[in-house]
């Protein structure tokens, strides 16, 4: 896990790029409307969801490419190592270096745009959990489209993100209307753990299939 974290940290473009793109979208969004417009609050939720989707795709694009092309995965299998563990660690590293900062930035922009007025901790966790779900799904897409280009992965897994988007939309609705959203947060948390584990396993199966 620490090794993966360190490896990802060294590839600055891979983790800083998505964060910067997310920040730029969030900055560009109010500029496209009137800054004092009431539309800012009403349309912020949709912009946040779409940005998170896009960033999850960007941050997972090619997540396994390097290890696949340089033969690390192949060597791991031939040595009897666990591919699931390798994928698991890779995803964990991306959650720490990409998902969490994006969740933090998402929260800050939500507050700045007036979409969230209280329950900051719940909002932060909610955005983080949905990031985990989306990243896990897009990592699966990335595993499918290894050496086939990113588009194939996106079109094949994008429909799976629909339940997460629905859930997150409800969560944002409840949090912006100051309704108790702890149940939805728990649901998002549980779903993120299950999704993460299932998709890590699926990714390892698909990568193994590519290698075989």
């Amino acid at each position: 896990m620490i090794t993966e974290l360190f490896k990802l940290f060294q590839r600055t473009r891979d983790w800083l790029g998505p964060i910067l793109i997310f920040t730029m979208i969030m900055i560009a969004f109010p500029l496209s409307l009137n800054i004092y417009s009431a539309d800012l609050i009403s349309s912020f939720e949709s912009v946040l969801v779409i940005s998170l989707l896009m960033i999850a795709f960007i941050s997972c694009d090619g997540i396994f490419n390097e290890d696949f092309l340089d033969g690390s995965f192949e060597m791991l299998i031939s040595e009897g190592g666990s591919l699931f563990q390798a994928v698991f660690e890779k995803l964990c590293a991306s959650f720490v270096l990409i998902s969490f900062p994006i969740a933090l930035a998402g929260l800050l922009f939500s507050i700045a745009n007036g979409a969230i007025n209280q329950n900051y901790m719940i909002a932060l966790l909610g955005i983080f959990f949905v990031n985990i779900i989306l990243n896990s799904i897009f990592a699966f897409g990335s595993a499918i489209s290894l050496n086939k280009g990113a588009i194939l992965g996106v079109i094949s897994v994008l429909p799976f993100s629909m339940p997460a988007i629905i859930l997150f939309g409800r969560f944002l609705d409840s949090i912006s209307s100051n309704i108790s959203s702890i149940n939805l947060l728990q649901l998002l948390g549980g779903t993120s753990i299950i999704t993460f584990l299932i998709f890590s396993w699926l990714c390892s199966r698909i990568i193994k299939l590519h290698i075989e």
Partner: protein
Amino acid sequence: MLLGWIVGLLFAPIDAVQGHSYRIIYLHVPMAIYSQLIYWFMAIWSFCFLIWKIKIAPSMILSAAYIGCMVTFLALLSGSVWGIPTWGTWWQWDARITSTFILFIMYLALLTVNNSFQNTNTADQITAWIALVGVINIPIIKKSVDWWSTLHQPASISLTTESSIDLSMLIPLLISVIGVGIFLFSLGLKVSRWVIYRRESD
């Protein structure tokens, strides 16, 4: 199928609210039902393939994807045509319509993925995994009219509760559903024969 359509289109009574336009139900409802059923069929074959490596399963999955894609497209198209006289619009970003549109994209994605790999075994296994994971969307499509307040009406026919549709309209509808099912089954046999032939010749 033809019997159901003839009775439905010519002899079923006129709807008090929608007039004659409701008759598209005899095409739209069977297509909508089978668009989801075919996905279940595909998912079951995917499961069988991944567990027991049944040789015929990939051909069945692929055939189902072709037919499912066509059926879902027809369901969307007939719904859209029905939308004009009843809602005054061809399209609405409503939960049921959007989720069915996503189902159509899922069928297309499966076909694209299957065609993207040179190695047939890799393509088959990846397609099966995607089909299996995609099942998560089917209950959402089914329940979308209950979970959200949508423009699309809730289900008129149910296995557990009394149907809200009159018997004189319901009987031709059931005949259409059964008829379309038989037609799709025979079409499925033809498509799967073509798929098997194409795969074997490759």
